[in-house]
């Protein structure tokens, strides 16, 4: 069905005459060899009118159980935070939604200023001096940080905490195979990265030392100690210490020490908690901040301040000699289209939360997460996987089949969290349940979850005696 086009038969005749061809077909016949022309219609359904497309997409949406349809404690990288209405309104404005990358700064000051403000907010949040204008999302941001380390010191190995999100580890591995890096995984001990194994794994060939804060099991790592250990483990090495990379959860940084204060060189993370929707996993944005010395190796767009010919303040894309469209095979990254609109959502969210709000929200998450953890861990057949401090998510071990327990909870309108083993595929994670708390999950909901989960675990233990 012709759609969104405007060529009338009269237009067509006039246009073909201007081109100097007898038919539309002639334009193609003169350019595309007959052997590679399709010569038939695509085997796809016929087009639909707008209301029928809406109904079809609505019917598909209705077959999903969203966070609107159940009380959800799912997390593990993306979280059901409340997205304020003003973000929807601003992200849907034509002026932000429909432009391309700001290659013509004179008519792109809105988008460029948003990038500049976003960079400022991320620098403040992370306590690091430089930020780019965003990369794709969390795990690929970890891989991009690894590539930065490789370009920076040319060493051959990444040392990675097992507390990193499994998707981050796998993404890093996929990318590292390309540029020939080895990965060494340091296990968790008592819920956090084992400090001795961490120090032992880092040597003169270590390009980057990478951990998550909080880690995949929700535990707060001793970031300052991990950074210091990474630097001192390589102290005698003439080429310098490895690049210390932390994958951070930005929503925690109202209460948690900033990576920049903990000796971290590059902080990356999934930006979704900052005003972006769940969207079944994307689009969101990846944040990427670093110490000054890495500025010229950063991937992605960076907005910089300057003046116009009349002296007015303005913004441009800067340090473009890092980028693929200028440097081609010598670029610091191949990234081109990234996540500008999602980063807009991020900076508007941080402005909406504000300086006090991000602390208040962090304290609320701390208190409710603590309450939920203690309440759920007191259930018979449920225990804490570790006893480290947690901020917004915690891991439990169920003495029952997690999938079966989840199914019982779902029948009661609850999703108790992520089955850790289903995500990692590791035998040692059997029974693991990762429970996430956002400001949307009230005490009443947590109490009801305790009832539902308790009943489900009890029923499963009875059904399948140990």
């Amino acid at each position, binding site marked *: 069905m012709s759609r969104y*086009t405007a060529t009338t038969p009269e237009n067509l005749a006039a246009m073909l005459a201007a081109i100097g061809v007898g038919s539309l077909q002639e334009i193609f016949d003169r350019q595309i060899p007959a052997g590679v022309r399709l010569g038939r219609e695509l085997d796809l359904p016929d087009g639909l009118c707008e209301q029928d497309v809406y109904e079809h*997409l609505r019917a598909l949406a209705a077959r999903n159980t969203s966070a609107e349809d159940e009380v959800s404690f799912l997390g593990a990288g993306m979280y059901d935070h409340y997205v304020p209405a003003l973000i929807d309104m601003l992200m849907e404005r034509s002026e932000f939604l429909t*432009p391309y990358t700001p290659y013509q700064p004179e008519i792109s000051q809105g988008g460029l200023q948003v990038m500049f403000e976003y960079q400022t907010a991320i620098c403040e949040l992370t306590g690091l001096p430089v930020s780019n204008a965003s990369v794709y999302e969390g795990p690929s941001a970890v891989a991009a940080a690894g590539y930065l380390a490789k370009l920076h010191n040319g060493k051959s190995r990444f040392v990675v905490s097992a507390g990193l999100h499994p998707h981050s580890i796998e993404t890093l591995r996929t*990318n590292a195979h*390309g540029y020939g890096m080895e990965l060494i995984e340091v296990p968790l001990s008592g819920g956090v990265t084992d400090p001795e194994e961490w120090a032992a794994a880092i040597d003169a060939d270590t390009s980057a030392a990478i951990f998550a804060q909080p880690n995949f099991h929700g535990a707060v790592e001793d970031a300052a100690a991990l950074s210091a250990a990474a630097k001192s483990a390589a102290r005698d090495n003439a080429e310098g210490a490895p690049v210390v990379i932390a994958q951070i959860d930005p929503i925690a940084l109202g209460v948690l020490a900033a990576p920049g204060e903990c000796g971290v060189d590059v902080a990356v993370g999934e930006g979704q908690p900052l005003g972006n929707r769940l969207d079944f996993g994307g689009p969101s944005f990846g944040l990427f901040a670093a110490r000054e010395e890495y500025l010229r190796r950063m991937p992605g767009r960076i907005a910089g301040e300057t003046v116009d010919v009349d002296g007015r*303040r303005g913004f441009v894309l800067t340090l473009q000699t890092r980028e693929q469209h200028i440097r081609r095979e010598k670029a610091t990254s191949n990234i081109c289209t990234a996540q500008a609109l999602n980063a807009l959502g991020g900076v508007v969210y941080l402005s909406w939360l*504000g300086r006090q709000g991000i602390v208040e929200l962090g304290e609320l998450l701390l208190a409710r997460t603590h309450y939920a953890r203690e309440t759920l861990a007191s259930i018979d057949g449920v225990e804490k996987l570790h006893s480290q401090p947690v901020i917004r998510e915690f891991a439990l071990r169920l003495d029952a089949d997690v999938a079966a327990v989840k199914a019982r909870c779902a029948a009661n309108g609850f999703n108790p969290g992520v089955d850790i083993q289903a995500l990692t595929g590791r035998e040692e994670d059997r029974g693991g349940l990762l429970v996430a708390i956002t400001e949307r999950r009230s005490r009443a909901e947590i109490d009801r979850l305790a009832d539902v989960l308790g009943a489900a675990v009890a029923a499963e233990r009875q059904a399948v005696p140990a």
Partner: protein
Amino acid sequence: MTGLTELPLQRQRAKTIFQKGAPGRRAFVCPELDVPTVDPETLLPRRFRRAEPPRLPEVSEPEIVRHYVSISKRNFDLDSGFYPLGSCTMKHNPRLHERVAALPGHARLHPLQDPEHAQGALELMWNLQQALAEISGLPHISLQPSAGSHGELAGVLLTRAYHEAKGEHRHKVLTPDTAHGTNPATVTMAGLEVVKVATNSGGGVDLDDLRAKADGDVACLMLTNPNTLGLFDPNISEIAEIVHGIGATLYYDGANLNAVMGLSRPGDMGFDIVHFNLHKSFTQPHGGGGPGSGPIAVSDRIAPFLPRPLVVRGEDGAFDLDYDSERSIGRLRGFQGNYGCFVRAYAYICSLGADGLKDASEMAVLNANYLLALLKRKGVAEYLPLAYGELCLHEFVLSGGPMKRELGVKTLDLAKRLLDFGFHPPTVYFPLLVEEALMVEPTETETKETLDAFADAIAEILAEAVEDPEIAKNAPYSTPVRRLDEVAAAKHPVIRQAL
């Protein structure tokens, strides 16, 4: 014309959100603390705590709205005017897509929801995969890559895995000198080496040069067809034969797919791997630089290496995610890809159907050729000749070389003067092999009247430049800011608001 008289938008000096507000001002109201108070040290020991809150803005909600709405007006956008940016396919973004993507069943669906409770999403992904396979002529799809360049990275890593599985370590990737910058950048990131292939006088791949460089070390040839000159390579079958003859793979950069949907398929041309740009051909809005989405389609021999997870359909018709493909290159990112973009692209394909997609490509090609014909007029063509060929597909490249030599006006000046006429300029200075290149892609959603007005504007700017080249050289005059000092910005980078 000298900028001495300021327009209202110019009079507003840029002030960031960090320079607004006042201490103690706020928008957020925190939900009530409904759980028992616990000693802060128990919740989070002091040594892990942040000493000072981050210096985020302190602003009210009305202030936030006014700030961002005001600065939005300092952007030019596709909804306001013609945006013929070559290789970017700035076609209309239907608002229906925003409405369906915002339905809570899509927008508030958690990526780790159990597949049995996400059947609608998986079916949508499955249907989109089927459609992309049919459009590309390649049967196996991964929707995971986040953008075109991410799809390219997937493609080169797939090529590498394919050769490695055969025990071969081929280290060279051929790219034409007309290639998008992302192609060579990707090759380096995948640990391989770029070898450039020359362009012949017709704008296609130089076959002699290709044969000379096609040896057993070549892993892949990356090609855009039609290429960045808007030209379909007439020797594509021969190119495919040469590449397959040395055991290498053929990679299709799908940035220009909008020229050939329903007309010619990369799979039928002999390509092994294709990436799509859902934010180009399939109308995902560009968002001022993303989000995008870059699914890939591959042939049978590449399929075992596709990224994990894959959407699969069981015998009972239920959809699932398969994480177990053992020869997979692994993940390229978290979760399943940019699902929100899949919803929009799928809605677009449902709206158009088979004949609508073909119509879109036909009208895109018609519009490009019509605009090209208009620009062959006297007063324009002598300054801005077509760089290669006679006709084009969805886009064409003019050379501003004569304009620069005869009028002293560069392509950049022409682009800046177009801003005063209310148009977004075409892509400039790309592809690199064309002197003072101006790359024009009107897309199928523009009216004849818009194309006429754009051609008239180019003619007027050139006529004006013949009289007084200084006008273009100092343009623009009517934009919120005028030409910006990019050199100073790069020399002493200021990339955040000082607080």
